[in-house]
């Protein structure tokens, strides 16, 4: 069946008033300036990227479509795994991701899988492109594959080459060989959620995981909660305060899951992003040798803050991907659903909603890329702005998609239902959006103080 020549209320490309045809009659010198090539928003955006990143974006999209799409519904509906258990489908995904370099792209070849060329651009930009493309298809699997990088970044940011050589490189080698070695990042504690992500709160909070000096190393005791991928991680960067000291003494320890006293207590029952478990971890006097201290003692808070400053770009990328996925699902629904002989896409109220969704998504992507493009230094203010604004707007876009689909959107099969549950997490983790707003102010406070003094 031939497609209809135009949507209701619009002109066909052949109509005498259609700019498409009229532009073609303009002088040859002007034509290229006013006549863009027909292209989707995605193609237009990809064309603005440097060649290496454009290739990476296409690769991430291809991987997501090939490996995540067909698993998305089943892994969301599957019962939460008990600690130590991984759905066979996700175990396969992990192996494939490892072999294809998706678990090792923080370091360049031959140590990891990133091309040297990609280091011409800020790493956070590449990571944001990655989380966008994966989250567009399945945010749960995106988190399953990406929380691992969050566990590795502290080791890199500690600037400890020995630690990278001893812990990251062998793990990367295993992953590329098809035996995935997953990392996790453990900061949140039962009595310290936001306190672990914000300086003022941290300064007066009581640490829950404490490291006691023992012969040859440290003994860790306490609990961490909501640790993404903590159930499957072989290595975990754990932040603990030194005995009788505050959070300013936070030190980053590399704990492996075979250390005596380490326990994955349980996996939480989550609203969304269910492919990735949020684990509660217990440390029952876990002995961590001195050579498993990442960086130096008492450098943990700095490493943590630097890690969050970088990773919040990636969270913003997730949000953009969810908004994009929801927009595409709404467009698909509008094009295949008919009412009174017309496609929903013919109705102006539907067109208005879709235009809003496309534009909001483009706006947050633009904000993120603009900030990430120059983020060779991951600034706290910019990363937090991107994190809270992109995630808030993404949830709004997903809500618009739900609204467009009406009660059909509430069904699990709509995909948007899952996207809403997934998107809601992005407003919470890596610091709630309230904490991220305060982080912007914290990072700019010298500017404000200078003004207050002048006045």
């Amino acid at each position, binding site marked *: 069946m031939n497609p209809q020549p135009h949507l209701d209320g619009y002109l066909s490309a052949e109509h005498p008033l259609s700019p498409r045809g009229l532009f073609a009659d303009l002088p040859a010198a002007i034509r290229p300036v006013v006549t863009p090539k027909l292209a989707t928003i995605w193609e237009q955006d990809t064309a603005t990227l440097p060649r290496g990143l454009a290739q990476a974006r296409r690769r991430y999209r291809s991987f997501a479509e090939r490996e995540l799409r067909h698993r998305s519904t089943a892994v969301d*509906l599957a019962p939460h795994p008990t600690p130590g258990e991984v759905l066979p489908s996700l175990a396969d995904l992990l192996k494939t991701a490892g072999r294809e370099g998706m678990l090792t792209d923080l370091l360049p070849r031959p140590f990891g899988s990133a091309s040297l060329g990609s280091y011409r651009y800020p790493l956070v930009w590449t990571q944001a492109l990655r989380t966008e493309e994966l989250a567009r298809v399945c945010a749960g699997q995106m988190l399953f594959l990406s929380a691992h990088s969050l566990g590795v970044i502290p080791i890199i940011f500690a600037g400890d080459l020995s630690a990278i050589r001893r812990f990251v490189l062998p793990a990367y080698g295993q992953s590329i060989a098809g035996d995935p070695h997953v990392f996790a990042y453990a900061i*949140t504690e039962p*009595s*310290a*959620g*936001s*306190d672990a992500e*914000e300086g*003022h*709160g941290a300064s*007066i*909070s009581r640490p829950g995981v404490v490291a006691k000096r023992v012969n040859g190393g440290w003994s860790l005791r306490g609990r961490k*909660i*909501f640790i993404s991928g903590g159930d499957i991680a072989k290595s975990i960067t754990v932040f603990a305060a030194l005995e009788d000291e505050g959070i300013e003494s936070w030190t980053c320890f590399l704990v492996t899951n075979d250390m005596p006293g380490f326990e994955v207590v349980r996996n*939480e*029952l*989550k*609203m*969304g992003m269910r492919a990735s478990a*949020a684990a509660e971890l217990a440390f029952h006097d876990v002995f961590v040798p001195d050579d498993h201290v990442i960086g130096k003692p008492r450098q943990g808070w700095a490493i943590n803050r630097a890690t969050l400053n970088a990773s919040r770009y990636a969270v913003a990328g997730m949000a953009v991907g969810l908004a994009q996925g929801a927009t595409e699902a709404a467009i698909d629904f509008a094009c295949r*659903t*008919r*009412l*009174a*002989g017309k496609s*929903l896409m013919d*109705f102006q*109220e539907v067109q208005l*909603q879709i235009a809003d969704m496309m534009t909001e998504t483009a706006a947050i992507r633009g904000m993120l890329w603009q900030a990430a493009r120059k983020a060779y230094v991951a600034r706290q203010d910019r990363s937090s702005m991107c994190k809270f604004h992109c995630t808030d707007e993404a*949830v709004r876009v997903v*809500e618009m998609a*739900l*609204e467009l*689909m*009406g*009660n*059909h*959107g*509430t*069904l*699990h*099969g709509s995909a948007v*239902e899952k996207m*809403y*549950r997934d998107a*809601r*997490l992005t*407003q*919470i*983790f890596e610091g*709630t*959006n*309230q904490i991220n*707003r*305060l982080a912007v102010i914290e990072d700019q406070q010298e500017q404000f103080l200078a003004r207050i003094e002048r006045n």
Partner: protein
Amino acid sequence: METLLNKEDVQTVLGEVRRFARGVVSSNVERPEHSLPRDSMDALVAEATEAGFIPDAGGDPTGLWVDLDDPLGLALSARTIETLASVNPGIAWSCHVRAMPVWLARRLNRPEALDEKETVVTLQGCYGLGRTALPRYLAGAKLVADDRAMLKDWLMPAQKDARRVVHAPTGFDGVLSPYFDGEAVGWMRQPIDALDPLPVGPTLGLDEVDAVALASSEAGTPLGLEDPEEARNIFAEALVIESLALVAVGLGCLRHGRDLAREQAKARKQGGRSIAHHPAVQSLVGSADSAVAVVDALLDRMADGPLRGSRVGDVFAIRAEAHPLLCRGATDALQVFGGSGYMQDVGMEKVLRDSQQLRLMGGTPGDLARFVAEWERVR
């Protein structure tokens, strides 16, 4: 007209409902992460019927959506649903779903409409609210060909795979559906088998209630209405009742969420003191508080006076604003919890999912707003 209910009566009944909700219902839903088994739901609904909160098909019914000519009748039903929803929105919605066919059969004066063992009423067509055709029809405007085509296809779609979505406990045998005969909306009793019911798995919210997608079919027994004006009124009245139910469930749901957020704000410490002292948290709790207060007042207005189909525009206008407010309050209440709000065992994420689910049922805020614009233009 004789006034059957006074405010004391209403308070007495609501007191009984409250005791039932807190004493009987709450013990069944203490673990928000566990969905209520179907047999428990059936037992609770039977107990609510026994207690007189849900009308029985036979005899002289009492309970939800009975006595709606009484100026306090709508308010009593709406507040009954809200009270139940403050303990569990899915159970409250199920009680409404059970009561609705009884109201409709009585209103149509067709008791045989309830011949099926369990019957549900569907009001919404395959998508949206029939665009401008529905308000034009309900306002008594002259219908044009496009309106007729829209109403017909909305209620009984021609597209092969188009389906109406019904949110009701599974196991119902028959459906009372509106259809458009070219002039007026009539009612038809359809056996479930004729509608090729398709279970569609879990939904965003109301975990206790199942969703079924029904195919289009002309098979069924028309219940016939000779007076077109009466047919129009009955459809409009049904839409008013459903809107009241949706807002009442939403209000009860958020009341519960707001209480959870208040408790969390008091108990949780951050930065060395209760988070209730942090302006960020105060803003979030205050948002939930104000949403509850505003929608509470709006529900009063929606339920004020006897049931009249002519109030559908006003009721839709209120609903169009009430649900976004409830959703905003719910998401802000959840945010008070930080990470734990995302976990099912806390119960807050269910409040948010239920709130969003209710926003999308029976016409979205956008559908309702466009309905109101046309309704006000033509009537």
